[in-house]
C-alpha cells in the first residue's frame, strides 16, 4: 500500500505521521491515540468527530488527513492545562451538562471556537454553535447553560 507523510501540530505538539493517501483525519487521530475524537455517523451529520483545525471547528470524518498538512489541530485532550481544566470543561461539570459523554468533546470544542471569536455570545449564538453536534441522550439545554456560564465567569 502506498503511503505519504503528513506534518502537523496536534494540541501544540509537532507530529509527523505516515498515512495512506485516502486516510481520513478522524481515522488517523484515533489511530494515534486521540480517542476524544469520536467516531459517530461518519457522514458529517452528528458532529461527534469535531476537532478545531486552525481554530475552526470541522468534522474530521469529512477531512482527508493529507489536507491537515501544516495545520494546527486541537482535540479535547489538548484543552486542559495539566490538572487544570478549561473553564468550559469546569462549566460542563458544574451544570451537569454531560450524560453519556459521547458528544461532549464536540460540544466543548465548538463552544471554545465560539468563545475565542466572541467572548460574550447570546443564547441564540450558543445554540447555533452547538447545532452541529447531536446529543443522543437529548441533553441540549444544560450544555447551552454551561457555555453561557463559562462566558459569564471567564476572563477571556
Amino acid at each position, binding site marked *: 500500500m502506498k503511503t505519504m507523510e503528513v506534518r502537523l501540530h496536534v494540541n501544540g505538539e509537532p507530529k509527523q505521521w505516515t498515512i*495512506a493517501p485516502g486516510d*481520513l483525519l478522524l481515522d488517523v487521530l484515533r489511530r494515534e491515540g486521540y480517542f476524544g475524537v469520536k467516531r459517530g455517523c461518519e457522514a458529517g451529520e452528528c458532529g461527534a468527530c469535531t476537532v478545531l483545525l486552525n481554530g475552526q471547528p470541522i468534522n474530521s470524518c*469529512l477531512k482527508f488527513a493529507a489536507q491537515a498538512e501544516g495545520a494546527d489541530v486541537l482535540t479535547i485532550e489538548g484543552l486542559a492545562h495539566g490538572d487544570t481544566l478549561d473553564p468550559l470543561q469546569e462549566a460542563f461539570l458544574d451544570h451537569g451538562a454531560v450524560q453519556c459523554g459521547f458528544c461532549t468533546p464536540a460540544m466543548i470544542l465548538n463552544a471554545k471556537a465560539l468563545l475565542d471569536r466572541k467572548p460574550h455570545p447570546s443564547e441564540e449564538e450558543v445554540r447555533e454553535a452547538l447545532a452541529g453536534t447531536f446529543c443522543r441522550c437529548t441533553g441540549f439545554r444544560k450544555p447551552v447553560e454551561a457555555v453561557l456560564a463559562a462566558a459569564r465567569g471567564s476572563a477571556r
Partner: protein
Amino acid sequence: MFDTVEAFYRPGTVREALRLLQNGKNRARFVAGGTDLVVEADRSTRILIDITRAGLSYIRRKGQACVIGATTTMATIENSPAIRALAGGILARAAATCGSVQIRNMATLGGNLANGSPAADTATPLLALDAEVVLADARGRRRIPLTEFYSGPRKTKTLLVEVAIPVPPRGARWSFQKLGRTEDDISLVNAAAGLQLDSKGRAKWVRIALGAVAPTPIRAVNAEKLLLGRKVDRSTLAEVCDEVEREVRPITDVRASAEYRREMCRVLVGRALQECAAGTGCSL
C-alpha cells in the same frame, strides 16, 4: 473507506491542478471541502487533488463585479462584509443555511455549484444575481452564465475557479426563502427573488429562482415576464405563483412529495416577492 486512493496531491496553482487531473485519466478527482465527495465515497477514485491551496480562496472586486474564488468557504461568505452588503445579503443568508457550523467551515462555494445538486442553497441567490462562473481547462479560462453551467452538458477535465456577480440593478430589493426540516437541513424548496420597481411602483426588473424543484436550480422565466410592468398586488402575485407552479418540475423523494413541493414553490415565491415589494426583504 478510501483505501483505493493511491495518491493525494496538494497543488499550489490551478495550472498544476489541471495538469494532475489530465495525468490522472478518469481516475482523478478534485477535492476541496470534502463534505459531498467523502459522503459519496466513489470507490473508482485513485487520485485526489486538493485544490484548497491553489489560490482560489478570496472575495474581491474586479472592475464593477464581485468575484469569489471557488474554494471560499460558506463560513467566509456568510461573514464577509462585502457579501453581506451585496443585494440585501441574500448570498450570505443562503451560505449561512448550508449545514452546521462545522460543515460551513469546510464546504466551498465552488463545490456547492459543481456538485450539481438541485438543492444547492447558494445557487438560487446566484441565479437571481445573474452570476457567471469561470471555468478553467488546459486551453484556458472562459466565463459562462450560471444558467448555462446548469443547462449545458457536463464538463469534464474542467475546474470551476471563480464565481462573478455583476453589480445588481440600482434600488433592487431581495429575498431568500428556504424551507427545510431545520434551519441547517437540506432544502425541501428554496427560492430567491430580486425586484426593481419604477417610480410608479411597477416591476421594472424581476428575478425568480428556485431550488430542489427541478433537475437543476432554475429561474422561473415565464413568471418573471408575467410580473414585468405590473404592480405587485394580490391578484398579480396569484397569477405569478400560478405560472411558477407550471414551470417547476419537482419530484417525490424521502423528504417531500412533488405535490407538496409544488405548493411550497407558490408559498415561498409569494413570500419572497411580497418581501421585495414591501422592502422588508433579506436582512441579516
